[in-house]
């Protein structure tokens, strides 16, 4: 594959970076990232990955754009209200960068479809941009079982957190958090609110992890939880140990099948994105 003049110009700021160069840009153009949730986290992540020239981007979401989403879900615009989020997202990406092929999955992930979605394009890296614990544990377990790296992200109010799972290299999400909290023990963004930019801050960190993984450069957030507080402007990077008794990723793992956890009834509608 050789670059066109337009591609040279579009990606010149990447190409002149020693860590990327033409080789790295080709890796990105051949890269495949699956983004689960096209909301607060998924929207900025998808846009930066599209701009960077990640050649295949999968978007998973069963929701439609709601006016209340637009305060943070920047891939959607006012004219998109009522449109399926994956369609709205795909349209934005197609306008941004014709080099990107968008694959849409207009469905919620669950134990019976998530492995097929991951396998569909044999994605290199997965971004968890969901806003609920059942989906977060499901994504973790699916990635561990199918040996796929992924970036976890979560935001609420003025706080955000992210960690990266690399197969066989550091803890998984379940090593750290064991099980979902009881339904309704933790408020959702819909109940608690979220500062719009939080999705941008955490979502673009997740996109950064995806890019670094594809490029094979730098150090990722495997074995670390990065937390951010927008009110105090503090980032903390907390070292995380592997849980040797983890029921999905340790050698004592008992979990061979995916689980669909119950979601709090009040959160089933209308939104499942951060």
């Amino acid at each position, binding site marked *: 594959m050789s670059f066109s003049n337009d591609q*040279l110009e579009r990606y010149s700021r990447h190409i002149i970076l020693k860590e990327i160069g033409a080789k790295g840009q080709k890796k990105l153009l051949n890269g495949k990232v699956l983004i689960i949730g096209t909301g607060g986290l998924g929207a900025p992540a998808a846009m930066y990955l599209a701009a960077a020239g990640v050649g295949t981007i999968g978007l998973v979401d069963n929701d439609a754009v709601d006016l209340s989403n637009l305060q943070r879900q920047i891939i959607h615009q006012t004219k998109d209200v009522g449109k399926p989020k994956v369609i709205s997202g795909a349209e934005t990406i197609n306008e941004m960068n014709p080099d990107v092929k968008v694959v849409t999955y207009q469905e919620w992930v669950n134990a019976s479809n998530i492995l097929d979605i991951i396998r569909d394009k044999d994605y290199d890296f997965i971004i968890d941009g969901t806003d609920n614990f059942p989906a977060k544990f499901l994504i973790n377990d699916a990635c561990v079982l199918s040996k796929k790296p992924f970036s976890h992200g979560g935001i609420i109010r003025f706080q955000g957190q992210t960690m990266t799972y690399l197969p066989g290299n550091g803890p998984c999400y379940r090593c750290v958090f064991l099980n979902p909290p009881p339904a309704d023990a933790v408020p959702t963004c819909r109940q608690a609110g979220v500062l719009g930019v939080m999705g941008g801050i955490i979502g673009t960190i997740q996109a950064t992890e995806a890019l670094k993984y594809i490029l094979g450069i730098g150090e990722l957030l495997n074995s670390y939880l990065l937390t951010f507080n927008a009110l105090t402007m503090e980032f903390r990077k907390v070292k995380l140990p592997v849980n040797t008794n983890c029921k999905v990723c340790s050698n004592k793992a008992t979990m061979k099948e995916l689980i669909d956890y119950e979601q709090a009834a009040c959160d089933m509608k209308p939104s499942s994105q951060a």
Partner: protein
Amino acid sequence: MTIILKKQDYDEILGHALMNLPNEACGLLGGLMDGEVKIVKKIYLLKNVDQSPEHFTLDPKEQFAVIKDIRRGNGVLLGNFHSHPSSPSRPSEEDKRLAFDVELSYLILSLQDKENPVLKSFRIKEAEVSEEEIQVI
């Protein structure tokens, strides 16, 4: 400044230089200048009217045609190139003396070792020479 040159364009420059041996070969580069990057979008292989192994002069008529073509949507004139059939890739005294535009890149392809051609780019300001990075991709 970094110059980004497509491999196929580099190959054409090299082919042009080899074909013109034992004389020097020359040409111009059009493209975009954006901050610290020059992106070569089109190369122009020109005649060396000197037909000499140690000197080159671009044909003025051809130069005008190139400038016209560049203005038609191929950016700006980024610089020029010439070959050194039997000396290293560095500006000669004459190259320095005749380098009047500090903005242009002066590329020199050395064929001293034909198996290992060396392409370098220079900026020349009042005989002061600084090398630029070239990325062939």
